[in-house]
């Protein structure tokens, strides 16, 4: 099994989740209120109250096939607004 970590602005959350649903992921977990820095931008806590939005961290445990299905859609969202996506190995307990 694989583990996919996505980190991006929470304002794109709906787009990302519907991309995940389209790829028929078995499930996902969302953690909001993440801050951070990427190659260009810095995301701070005060962006939460200005409506600008902080980051969301989405974790998906799934098979390799699902990862392959996800790739295109997710990449197009992340290339537009920024964000990162990494895959690693994971075994069910």
């Amino acid at each position, binding site marked *: 099994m694989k583990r996919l970590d996505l980190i991006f602005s929470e304002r794109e959350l709906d787009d990302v989740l519907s991309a995940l649903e389209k790829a028929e992921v078995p499930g996902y977990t969302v953690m909001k209120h993440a801050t951070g820095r990427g190659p260009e*931008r*810095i995301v701070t806590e*005060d962006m939460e109250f200005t409506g600008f939005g902080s980051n969301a961290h989405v974790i998906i445990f799934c098979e390799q096939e699902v990862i392959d299905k996800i790739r295109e859609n997710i990449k197009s969202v992340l290339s537009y607004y920024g964000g990162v996506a990494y895959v690693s190995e994971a075994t069910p307990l």
Partner: protein
Amino acid sequence: MGQNLFIQNALSPPILFFFLGAIAYALKSDFEIPAPLPKLFSLYLLLAIGFKGGIELQKSGFTYPVLPTVVAAILMSLLIPLICFVILRLKFDVFNAAAISAAYGSISAVTFITAESFLESQNIPFDGFMVAALALMESPAIIIGLLLVKFGATKNRPIKRKMKWGSILHESMLNGSVYLLLGSLLIGFLTSAVDPTDIKKMEPFTGELFYGAECFFLLDMGIVAAQRLARLNKTGAFLIMFSILMPIINAVLGSVVAKFLNLDSGNALLFVVLCASASYLAVPTAMRMTVPEARPSYYISTTLGLTFPFNIIFGIPVYMSLVNTMIPQI
């Protein structure tokens, strides 16, 4: 007298709490107001000013000078971005210039509130319908900003970033803070037409609590503004100048219009403050969604880190002097 006003403003609780926050950051105190508590206060303030504005609008009706003032405010929120755009294009590309322009065409609700508090402690009367002007200046500024991008940068953008009218309107009207402000205004307007006792029951929440909540929020704004200010060095001297001088230019423009509209000095100050202030809520959010090419640090750091503190600390008393000069009080 101007100096007097300045000191009186600087020693009012909202401004002092703002300083308290800013100094906490400067002295590296670990004092902080964790998310999402600032959001609670920003939601509350928008709801309360909208609601109270709606009640006042119901009271005054659309008699003179309500309608002309509101129309003039909307026109200012269309005109100011155009002036800004011309200036900013000297140094910035279309995307950044448009996004920053939109921010300055729009308003800062907290600056407006602070100006109201200032008028109250000066015992200068003002009218509640000015909130309607406030509420109606956000969307046009966003629209004009997006139009500048749509027509100014149409060739350079990839297809998927082509802007559609639907999304322009959506971003400008349904942005969270615009929506809450306009919605609360409408609710205040409707309710006070139907049942004045309901209004009275809201008063402790939307009215009495307001000043304290404003102070608490400004405490947080002090921290945030100082953080932004500290990061401003990367934005360059041009933008730093712009974010101090543009409010003054807009204020002068605004005071001319206010005189022309024959507003009393209280309303005139509020009108000037609306023109001079810049948005750090609705506009940046809308720009982030629709003009990702623009650097957020340009339009947030300047409005939050410079224009906002400048306006509440120096701007309000200065604009008051300006208004007093132009509109002689009886």
